[in-house]
């Protein structure tokens, strides 16, 4: 009987059973950042422990970095203390740190793949729930808490119980103006924000196979928003092509051997799954969220549902969402005025996101009064965009082109909503208060839809706005 990628990778990395019945799992690669690691290093010091495999941990700084003014010390003394602490910890324990002067700094989930640190068939852990992003390469990647960061630092392992595997097969052709972001928002809306609890999601089928690696990352990134801690795509030729020549990948004969090995980790054709769901790509349209969790989404031409029309379990959350968002059931989002457009985050701030959006933005202007910011996911992304002249297109349109970081995806740095501003956002979470203001309102959508909202000043169907392009 065949095995899934998840089972193969799990079996290969299992050290053994622990007394509580869980499995001790080897973590091939560990990624850390400034928010969830300092306390872990503190625990390590308290216990008198060392980092067991420092060459398997990589650090960067993303959540707290200002994206406009990079002069140190940062104005925010708390943020400044955090970056200094990470520098010290990396120096003390011999960990590679993609620090700001390195030219390789960025959001941890963008830096890993960019550097070729993210590889198929391995296990990856990071103290951040969007670690599932790395699954796009056929890795099994876990978001973990700080005590587990400590465990991985001290032992390169952690205690886990195996997950069930749900195959999400997407078939058919995506319509024009429909993107990977719309697929994953549709998956979450269809299967629920906690539908994936206890599961790893395997995204498969012709539509997924047809996506680029960067699009696959967008999908895997938001697995956790559907409750699935792990999401992955089987590695294929595109995966190997994307990785070839990247700094931390094997070279020469070792590369060929690695590719042979990586080909073996894909799920077998006769693998058995705990669950299978099939979605038709042609049914997916550009999606926008109207509520306070990523499952509360509608197609751009649909109306916000009435709580009474939803399943009983979703009603109270829908009522709460309508009250918080100040929206009415039956209202369409198209035409809803926005105040802020945010183009960034580990979901959608890669080169291909900027390239695709720039095709439509070129020659257009951000609507008067709209605060529009574009934040490349890494210094590497920024550099490529500048070489291609993409940054110029954004700047000329009236976007503020920033330095790499998490920026307005979460309120940990100076990029924040003010009051109850409405933000068209390419990020991943629309939770109350997520973008820094307790009353701020987030509408999740694809990057091209963010650009459409920016130039019209209201939520718009990008397919209509850009139909002349």
């Amino acid at each position, binding site marked *: 009987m065949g095995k899934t990628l998840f089972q193969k990778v799990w079996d*290969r990395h299992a*050290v*053994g059973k*622990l*007394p*509580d*019945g*869980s499995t*001790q799992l*080897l973590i*091939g*690669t560990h990624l850390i950042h400034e928010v*969830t690691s300092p*306390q872990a290093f*503190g625990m390590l010091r308290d216990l008198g*422990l060392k980092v*067991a495999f420092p*060459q*398997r941990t*990589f650090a960067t700084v993303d959540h*707290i970095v200002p994206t406009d003014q990079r002069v140190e010390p940062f104005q925010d003394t*708390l943020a400044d*203390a*955090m970056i200094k*602490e990470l520098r010290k910890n990396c120096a003390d324990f011999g960990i590679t740190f993609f620090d700001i002067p390195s030219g390789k700094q960025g959001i941890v989930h963008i830096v890993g793949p960019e*550097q070729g640190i993210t590889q198929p068939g*391995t296990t990856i852990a990071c103290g*951040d729930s969007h*670690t599932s992003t790395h699954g796009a390469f056929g890795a099994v990647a876990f*978001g*973990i*808490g*700080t*005590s*587990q960061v400590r*465990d991985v630092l001290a*032992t390169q*392992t952690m*205690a886990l119980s195996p997950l069930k595997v749900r195959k999400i097969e997407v078939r058919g052709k995506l319509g024009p103006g429909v993107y990977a972001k719309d697929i994953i928002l549709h998956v979450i809306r269809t299967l629920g*924000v*906690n539908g994936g*609890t206890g599961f790893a999601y395997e995204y498969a089928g012709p539509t997924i196979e047809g996506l680029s690696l960067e699009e696959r990352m967008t999908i895997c990134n938001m697995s*956790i928003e559907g*409750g699935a801690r792990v999401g992955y795509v089987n590695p294929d030729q595109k995966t190997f092509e994307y990785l070839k020549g990247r700094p*931390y*990948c094997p070279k020469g004969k070792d590369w060929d051997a690695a590719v042979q090995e990586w080909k073996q980790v894909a799920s077998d054709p006769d693998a058995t799954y705990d669950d299978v769901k099939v979605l038709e790509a042609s049914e997916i349209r550009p999606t926008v969220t109207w509520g*306070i*969790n990523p499952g509360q989404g509608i197609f751009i031409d649909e109306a916000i549902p009435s709580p009474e029309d939803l399943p009983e379990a979703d009603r*109270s959350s829908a009522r*709460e969402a309508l009250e918080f968002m100040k929206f009415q059931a039956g209202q369409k989002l198209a035409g809803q005025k926005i105040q802020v457009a945010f183009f960034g985050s580990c979901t959608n701030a890669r080169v291909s996101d900027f390239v695709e959006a720039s095709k439509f933005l070129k020659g257009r202007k951000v609507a008067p009064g709209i605060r529009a910011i574009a934040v490349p996911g890494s210094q590497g992304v920024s550099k490529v965009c500048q070489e291609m002249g993409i940054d110029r297109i954004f700047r000329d349109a009236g976007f503020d082109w920033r330095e790499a970081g998490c920026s307005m995806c*979460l*309120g*940990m740095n100076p990029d924040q909503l003010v009051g109850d501003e409405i933000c068209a956002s390419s990020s991943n*979470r629309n*939770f*109350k*208060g*997520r973008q*820094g*203001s307790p009353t701020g309102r987030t509408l999740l959508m694809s990057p091209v839809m963010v650009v459409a909202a920016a130039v019209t000043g209201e939520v718009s169907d990008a397919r209509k706005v850009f139909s002349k392009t």
Partner: protein
Amino acid sequence: MSLSPIRKISGRAVPVEGDDIDTDRIIPARYMRCVTFDGLGDFLFRDIRQTPEGKSKNHPIDQVQFQGATILVSGMNFGCGSSREHAPQAIVRAGFQAVIAGNFAEIFFGNSTTLGLPCVSAKKEDLQALTQLVTREPATQVEIDLEKLKVTAGKLSFPVTMKASAQQGLLSGRFDAIADLLANLPKVKDLAARIPGPTSP
């Protein structure tokens, strides 16, 4: 680490009503600019409890009759969202010892268990009954029996569930896995030698 087994939690309970209480609501990201977990308890549920200007919204947690409560009672999908351990750390540092909810997001559940904060899942109607009871009679003693997986409060009694490995870990005092993980370090080194990590450029 040798920790004391956790078999029973007894105390008064306070309701935090709603489904999908995410980790940004448990502790907003803007309060995570820190290098230790000290003091995080002060920001627990900040935006649920206070207006942006810092005025109390008179949430049950801040009501006089619930002072000293050690058990949180909430709805479905508690702790969804980010992997931040700051969330259960804030709960523990605010003096809570257990959470009873409909079900829990996976990463939050694991983080909480490691800290010795038991999270037990109850049926919706049982949660509603418990919420009503403690709202009406805040002095009610609530007991969570982790061995029998049962909650008792006054005349109310209902079953709860918990992942077996977490239950086992809490009952045996091995909920923090670090000692067990460290004990196998020689085996880890053998396995790691066969599975190379990223190649240095």
